[in-house]
């Protein structure tokens, strides 16, 4: 019976295997699947003035950089009063412990040199806890009157280096400014920096204007004007301020224009005899092409970033929904199937999402969905939200929000595509119908 005892002992030994199997072999391995989503603390001390006359601009430039980063909602700028270390020399060693003590995880240092009308700005970005620079330092130069653009460039570079996405600070927004009482609004074309600065009017308000759109190069603007009594599409050259009427056809209303990614093709809606369809027009050749011929209303077309497809809204199914078709026309497929009505679709510059306006149960929403209609997410909800436009990097959406009541007025708002960081965009007057420019060269 000894073999039975041995067998029992062997079985008993096997029972210990699971315990010994957990013994560590090699490095300890753990998996982190949960983190936190909070703004990254960043310190932007005043840039160093390398010339006496640059001290004021140095302070203002660093303030614009800090505001740009803070406005994204992805960063939390640390107040100057908390600083332990003072940056008085751009080339001086960084005192990492001092910045780490105030929990600054990133640090932006810079210097400003002003000589005559020339401005040169240098900056560096540091990872405080890694005690290493984040990328190479950069230098921007220009006229002193371009100091805000230079500041936006610095912020774009810092944002891009930390997040891995392109920035959007050095960009402009064209919109419709609205003044006067609600029933008698004076609507004019206006343009401003993305943050509301440097606003300027592009039209005198003698005619109603609607839905301006930037060209992919940012040098031209398409918009709809009632100057002749009927809605017509105009093309405005931003630099020369010259404008021209596009494709004038007697008795035809043209509206909702939008550039193609090549900057030459324009897609728009034309209404003739009570039917509205989509058309495309080549600005060089003037050749026009009908894209839809349905008895329903097709409008608000928007190109995909590669120019191969167009998303638009149509009521061909009985209610206002979103459809996608080839850029050359043809059969369209419906992508919105949720409750309510969908309109004003805009393809993301990244190509992965489509922003839209949704009306459901008496409320308006700004939302996004995949290009196949999946993963619909509503980002906002209010009395009236409409007209989304994408930031150049496809991370932020700007739109119009109008308040209810007789004293209600439109205003511009922006929201991150995650639904966070909803905030009002500062504009000198009431504003609507924003359209974001590409990142300026």
């Amino acid at each position, binding site marked *: 019976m000894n073999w039975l005892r041995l067998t029992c002992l062997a*079985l008993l030994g096997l029972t210990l295997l699971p315990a010994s199997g957990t013994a*560590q072999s090699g490095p*300890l391995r753990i998996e*982190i699947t*949960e*983190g936190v989503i909070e703004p990254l603390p960043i310190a932007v001390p005043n840039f160093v003035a390398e010339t006496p006359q640059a001290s004021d601009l140095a302070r203002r430039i660093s303030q614009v950089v800090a505001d740009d980063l803070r406005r994204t909602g992805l960063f939390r700028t640390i107040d100057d009063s908390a600083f332990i270390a003072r940056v008085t020399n751009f080339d001086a060693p960084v005192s990492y412990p001092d910045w780490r003590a105030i929990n600054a995880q990133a640090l932006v240092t810079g210097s400003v040199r002003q000589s005559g009308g020339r401005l040169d700005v240098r900056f560096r970005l540091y990872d405080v806890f890694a005690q290493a620079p984040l990328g190479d330092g*950069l230098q921007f130069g220009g006229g002193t009157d371009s100091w805000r653009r230079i500041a936006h*460039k610095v912020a774009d570079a810092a944002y891009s280096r930390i997040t891995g996405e392109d920035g959007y600070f050095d960009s402009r927004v064209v919109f419709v400014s609205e003044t006067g009482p609600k029933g008698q609004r004076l609507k004019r074309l206006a343009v401003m920096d993305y943050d509301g600065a440097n606003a300027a009017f592009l039209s005198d308000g003698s005619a109603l204007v609607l839905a301006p759109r930037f060209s992919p190069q940012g040098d031209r603007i398409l918009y709809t004007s009632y100057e002749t009594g009927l809605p017509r599409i105009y093309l405005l050259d931003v630099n020369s301020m010259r404008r021209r009427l596009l494709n004038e056809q007697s008795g035809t209303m043209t509206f909702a224009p939008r550039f193609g990614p090549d900057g030459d093709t324009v897609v728009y809606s034309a209404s003739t005899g009570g039917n509205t369809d989509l058309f495309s027009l080549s600005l060089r050749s003037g050749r026009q092409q009908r894209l839809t011929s349905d008895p329903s209303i097709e409008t608000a077309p928007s190109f995909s970033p590669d120019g191969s497809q167009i998303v638009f809204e149509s009521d061909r199914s009985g209610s206002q929904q979103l459809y996608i078709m080839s850029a050359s026309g043809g059969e369209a497929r419906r992508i919105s199937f949720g409750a309510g009505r969908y309109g004003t679709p805009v393809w993301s510059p990244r190509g992965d999402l489509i922003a839209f306006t949704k009306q459901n149960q008496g409320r308006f929403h700004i939302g996004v969905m995949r290009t196949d209609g999946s993963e619909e997410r509503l980002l906002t909800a209010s009395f009236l939200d409409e007209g989304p436009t994408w930031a150049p990097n496809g991370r932020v959406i700007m739109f119009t929000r109008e308040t209810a009541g007789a004293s209600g007025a439109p205003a511009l708002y922006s929201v991150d595509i995650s639904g966070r960081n909803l905030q009002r965009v500062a504009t000198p007057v009431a504003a609507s119908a924003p359209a974001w420019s590409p990142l300026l060269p």
Partner: protein
Amino acid sequence: MTTGAYISGAGHLFMMLWVLLGGVIFRAPPPNVVSTAEVSLISPEAYAELAALPEPESTQDIATPSAPDLSDSPTVPDAALSPQSPAPRPEIAEPADAEDVPEPPELDVPAAEVDDVAPSPPAAPDTSDQVALLAPVAQPEAPRSAPRVAPVPAPAPPPLAEEAPELSPGVTETPEAREEEPVVEEQPAAAPPEATTEIVTEAEDEGQAFAPRTSIRPRQRPPRQVLEATRTPTDPEPEASDNLSAAIAGALAEAATTPEPTAPSRPLGPPLTQGEKDTLRVAVQRCWNVGSLSTEALRTTVVVAVSMLPDGKPDNGTIRMLSSDGSQAATSQAFEAARRAVIRCGLNGYDLPADKYEQWRDIEMTFNPENMRIK
């Protein structure tokens, strides 16, 4: 784990059945046969002589060399990580129009010299002097006391040198003298007085010449049976001095053949419990901020390796990326966020059991943002 559970269950079931039914099924083994053997007794005198044998000095315990304190181990110096020393040499951009900001020229900022290679561990302690009494470390010869102090050590005097009373007059060799055998009066050798480079007091001199420089724990005593086994009843009783010489010789031979320990080792300790692992995971999670990551970086999983110091702090210079499933740009952002998390929450050291240091000295962390993506 499931297989182990099954085997464990079967084993326990079998054991229970054996306990309950073993008496019925199995017969008790026959009682062991007690075997006897003749032993020889030694006389009380012989035992007394054995007990009186002197203990060889070479059989002292030698303590296991303690591992060096890794907190004092060299780490990557901050200066090597910081980009402080190189001064930038920016290229001044060309003047541009007010409307156009020129292409941003890149500054020629020298990259920080970050040494990713961990510094080599401290060399194993030299244990050659652990038998200092038996193999003393070569020491500089201590100066002997002398009444004078010379600026340089004087050459050793010839033996039996005596101080000459006065200088001997020189002898000029002449042709006549060459032909004749010179008559040299035999004189005793003379030398200048002995001098040394420093004054050594008597108190300082006493006992220093032969004192060991370090004191170590003696070696472990070998089993007495070994010594006894070498003695046969027919061998003559060794003298005490012979025993001491043999012990010293044996210890010297053992010291010469004992391999030096290659590196200090710490006890492995038991594996980390799941709770201890969870504590570490939660600590890192608290600092893993993905709020500023791009959507692409939020789709990128990175595996980061880090070596830990005994006090639970990460060795920042060893943080490196092992693998990633994203693009280069997204990988860079994801890794930097992970690195910030490891460093930031490890500033005061992670709560890890010190007695299991070898279990968590090297850690691989997989940062999977699947649950953190924008949905």
